[in-house]
């Protein structure tokens, strides 16, 4: 093949008009100090107490790894740890299934409708978690709204309150915004003209969606899934209020150890186990987030 003229042209000043501009080169010296207030707050409210927790898990009541040995030797603890991860997985899955079409709808509806949809996502943020969870108690309880409707329809009532499905439903509702918002923010950046291009190349509408739109929306899905999963692992109020003895999650066990039994060492060990599990998970997910193509942003 002969050399193409435009290879030569690319040395010209205006050549390569499609090249990205690296704004990140603008780096005034000392800019790192802009982060100082945030770092200070994080040190005081996060790193310091965390350090104490870790310290006590190895020293309270006696120095050693005794608290960790206790944690993994107890069948109850292992069951609860496993259950916590399973519940987090379900919550992530259910919120993804609800959030994906919702976020997509947000990108295609008109301005006013979009505003309404965003409000629906944000309103729960403005209510306290306790209030929301109590609302779910009313909805889910044996004589609650859902079961009244089922009975009205002639169906047999289901047990929701103090069961795992009940906990999963409640947690999903609380965590849904954390799934919707990242997915929406990625989706609204997807150039829908790519779908038009796919159609012109012969793709049926659903194929264009599946092969072009979905892959481009995945970064948002990954981000949302990780946030929801990690938040689920440490969720306390909702599982405590909606759950029963057979649906206890790790956070309740921690609370029990620390506040009821005043056993800071064991509670701390549980927290550390959860923290490490979270880090492992993040490390596993990292390659997913680092994709080669970086954007589908509009060019023209």
């Amino acid at each position, binding site marked *: *093949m*002969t050399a*193409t*003229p*435009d290879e030569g*042209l*690319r040395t*010209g000043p*205006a*050549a*390569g*008009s*499609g*090249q*990205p501009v690296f704004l990140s080169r603008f780096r005034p010296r000392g800019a790192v100090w802009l982060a100082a207030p945030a770092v200070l707050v994080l040190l005081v409210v996060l790193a310091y107490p965390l350090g104490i927790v870790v310290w006590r898990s190895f020293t309270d009541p006696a120095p050693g790894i005794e608290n960790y040995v206790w944690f993994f030797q107890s069948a109850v603890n292992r069951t609860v740890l496993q259950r916590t991860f399973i519940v987090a997985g379900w919550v992530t899955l259910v919120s993804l299934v609800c959030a994906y079409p919702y976020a997509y709808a947000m990108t295609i509806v008109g301005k006013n409708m979009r505003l309404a949809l965003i409000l629906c996502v944000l309103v729960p943020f403005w209510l306290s978690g306790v209030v929301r969870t109590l609302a779910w108690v009313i909805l889910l309880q044996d004589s609650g709204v859902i079961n009244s409707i089922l009975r009205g329809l002639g169906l047999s009532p289901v047990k929701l309150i103090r069961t795992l499905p009940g906990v999963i439903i409640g947690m999903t509702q609380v965590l849904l915004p954390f799934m919707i918002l990242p997915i929406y923010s990625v989706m609204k950046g997807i*150039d829908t*003209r*790519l779908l*038009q*291009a*796919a*159609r*012109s*190349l*012969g*793709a*049926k*509408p659903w*194929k*264009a969606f599946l*092969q*072009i739109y979905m*892959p*481009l929306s995945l970064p948002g899905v990954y981000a949302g899934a990780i946030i929801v999963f990690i938040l689920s692992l440490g969720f306390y109020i909702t599982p405590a209020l909606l759950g029963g003895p057979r649906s206890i999650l790790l956070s309740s066990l921690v609370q029990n150890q620390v506040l009821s039994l005043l056993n800071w060492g064991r509670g701390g060990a549980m927290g550390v186990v959860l923290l490490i599990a979270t880090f492992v998970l993040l490390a596993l997910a990292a390659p997913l987030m680092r*994709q*080669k*193509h*970086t*954007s*589908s942003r*509009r*060019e*023209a």
Partner: protein
Amino acid sequence: MTAPQRSAGAAIEIRKASKHYGAFTALKDIDLHIRPGEFMTLLGPSGSGKTTTLNLIAGFTDISSGALEIGGKSVTGLPSHKRNIGVVFQHYALFPHMTVGKNVAYPLSLRGIKGDDREKRVRRALDMVKMADFAHRYPNELSGGQQQRVALARALVFDPPLLLMDEPLGALDKKLREWLQLEIKRIHRELGTTFVYVTHDQEEALVLSDRIAVFNGGRIEQIGTGRELYDNPATLFVGRFIGESTVLRGVAEASGDNTIVTISGQKILAHGRLAGDARPVILLRPERVALKRPGVDAITGENRLTGTVAEAIYLGSGSKYEVRLADGTTAVARSPLGAVDFAIGDTVDIAFLPSDLILLPDDASADVTLT
């Protein structure tokens, strides 16, 4: 070099087509016949309806009224993925999550073409646009010109009988644009596919096209070869849009088969008369206008107007002058190498023969739309 199979181009027949967006009419009664294998350019200012026309052909929007046939068959109601038309967009529209090779293979996969056959055709299409070495790159690792070449390969790899391009070179710098124009012309020659090309750059239209359709405000003003449009514009709008020109307005009166236009007391003779009672204006092409010292070198029958040189530009191959006439209009004249030189401020006559001017009905909208 091997190109994708030579396929017979498809004819396009658009009859009395209109497109409304609510109360707004984007296209009014368009008639456009494109021959098989022709390179047709839709030329016009922004908002004149070029993209709308292309979208109708591609099936991205529905026609409001009228008929549209591709290859002799009505395509009304046929969705875009069934039309088998290649489309190249100004914004490239490459799939960012696929490599160049995957992008070009995509329309083949959709058609169930697999394995070696697919590889071979992808390779051939990339060879055609000289991008074969980039098959493993992602679109964001390419320059704009390279992306557009890949987009062209992707739109042609499935041998469509028709290729639509909407300002494909609009985002590129001038040098690259000129080189790609020649590449597109070569590919069109090699393939025999019908090309419909949208641009608002009249020079680009002249370089590329067999014929040009000039759009203005949702209507087609004229369809013809570049030469026809330049030499015989049907409207003042077309005359001003294609090429450089000077428009002279004055008091017109009929005189037998001729028209006499009086401008600042000087009489201009034009052959022919306009039908109807439209006000005649005179359109002059710069290379048909000679600059002469006042009262010197007269040729019989020649028209003359006196003015002052306002701008003198040396172009290498000759000179270009702007002459301010008595009524305030600026006339443009181009003189060949070796002609007499004039300086800014010189009093000169612009001289032109009655057969060299174009008499057209006045149209105020031509001035407005062009600025």
